[in-house]
């Protein structure tokens, strides 16, 4: 097994870039530099998507899924979506932020209340309507600031999975 293998990688997590440097000192003894900190890591594969990481003596039982854009990682009950996007792609998505976006229902449910009207201004994270699904009432928030262009359902109506809730531009 060749040692001394080195690698630099950039990841994005919550719109923040992280640079990692990995260097295998001995077999299964990897020096990882993340920001200004160094970690000594060894790894065991438990199954297709389970890793047992030892980071400076601390054990992490991790579930990791690979997909085309990056990794879905589950650690101690927390879930992280790590992306391998390039900076230009990130900028690209930021540009499209001001375009019109359709917000669709991810599950069937009933519209309990509509809080805003078409033509109203909305801030990012502001609740637009209340959807009842799985016996719970959920506020559906706008993913971006802008103006409400359209509200699909009326209060009291049932919506199916995938139907338009509202459009914001």
């Amino acid at each position: 097994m060749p040692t001394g293998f080195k690698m630099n990688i950039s990841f994005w997590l919550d719109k923040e870039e992280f640079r990692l440097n990995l260097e295998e000192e001995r077999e299964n003894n990897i020096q990882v530099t993340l920001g200004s900190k160094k970690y000594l890591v060894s790894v065991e594969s438990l199954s297709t998507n389970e890793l047992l990481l030892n980071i400076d003596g601390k054990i992490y039982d991790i579930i990791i899924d690979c997909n085309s854009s990056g990794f879905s990682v589950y650690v101690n009950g927390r879930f992280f979506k790590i992306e391998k996007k390039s900076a230009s792609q990130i900028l690209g998505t930021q540009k499209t932020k001001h375009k019109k976006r359709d917000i669709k229902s991810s599950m069937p449910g009933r519209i309990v209340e509509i809080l805003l009207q078409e033509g109203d201004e909305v801030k990012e994270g502001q609740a637009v309507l209340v959807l009842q699904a799985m016996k719970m009432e959920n506020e559906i928030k706008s993913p971006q600031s802008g103006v409400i262009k359209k509200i699909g359902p009326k209060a009291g109506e049932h919506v199916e999975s995938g139907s338009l809730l509202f459009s914001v531009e």
Partner: protein
Amino acid sequence: MTKMFKKILIANRGEIAVRVIRTCREMGITPVAVYSEVDRKALHVRLAEEAYILGPAKPYQSYLNLDKIIEVAKRAKVSAIHPGYGFLAENSDFVKRCEKEGFVFIGPPSEPMEIMGNKTYSRQKMVKAKVPIIPGTLEPLKDEKDLGQKAQKVGYPLLLKASAGGGGKGMRLVKEKEELLSSFRMAQSEAQSSFGDPSIYIEKYIEEPHHIEIQILADNFGNIVSLGERECSIQRRYQKVLEETPSPFLDEGTRREMGQIAVKVAAAVKYRNAGTVEFVVDREKKFYFLEMNTRLQVEHPITEMVTGIDLVKWQIEIAAGSSLSFSQEDIKPKGFSLECRIYAEDPDNNFMPSPGRIVHLRSPGGGLGVRDDNGVYEGYEVPLEYDPLLSKLITWGMTRPEAIHRMLRALSEYQIYGIKTTLPFFKRILVHPRFFKGNYNTHFISELEKEEDGGGDEEKVAALIAAGIRDYAESKAGTFSPPSKQRESNWKFQGRLRNLANRL
């Protein structure tokens, strides 16, 4: 000797159906499960000895369908029906129907259920029984003029509540006179849409309230015992999140008094079987009757942990005609117990429901004092038609800190992957200094949500390193090319990756 049932139908699903099935099997009773089309592979079906399909997923076509459930009960020749909680558990028409068809309903008779189902009527009953209730009106408000006069008398802040209500629906907090009319109209329309009854009454708003409930058991021979309290103040939008017993807020005197009043409440309505009397307790530990839940509660296991009494077993015993084999003096709770409700909800996204397939599940079995009452398994698809409760994680300890640390340990071992769950949220509650000191009321979670979530940095680093290692394994072997249009089979890809990781 009472004649024990041979077969019981469990008219429910999820963790509570599993819970009841377990006790049935321990008692040598054949449990009969019912299920909807989306629940064909549910855990309660897998564990039952007999199971019958009810119909489509929608509750009114399956678990709420009285006719179908009675039909199955006849077909399976059961002698009794356990309703669990939710669905038909507090439906007095169902109780009457069971009686008419000759099935024993494992729960209270229809009369106390009807009294407690109507909030204004139950308040009137309690006043007669000299049980303290929250100051307010005893009758539903007649009109807007009546509202103005009564509100003035009760004083602000006040709560408008639905007579038929529960779960915070049709409820409005009114801080001052100016908000009264609009809040009243909103509460009315919400009550109408949720319960089909727009009646509203007024209650004085209790500041910094605690929600504390008392478990009781009542047999058919006039014996009623209280089994101690459950502190249920950790709530989010009126939904309980975490419960514990004993309450860190109560003193011995208040506790005893509440137990006695709870017994009085049950006696006043001729209650039978297991029930729970809910109280609101104010800053000065003055307590008021809130409502009585005429069924088994979700959080009943913490009472079982400290008393050693299987509540479902006693529900069945009482229904079969047994008398309680213990008296109030025999009830000596030992130690401390907590319950965390693990929901299929995303705590990082305003607790949105997260149905889907559980790809990976590891339950923290093992060790003293850990109990996992769950209704799911690895590979199970959480349906979106029902309540998103996946599991109740319960711990017991000799001391409160021991029970808390045991819970933290069990939570750290619990892995549910594939859907979002409330698992990571509990750590924030449990390690919070105010929770640890037992110094909290019903506002705790809304205050916690305003605080910055400081945790997760360590996990973030581990997640980034894991991704780095995966990437590294791919690059090191030199077999990985950036995703092209023609991607190789995932199986091949994973297999190769696994080999590499093994060799690392």
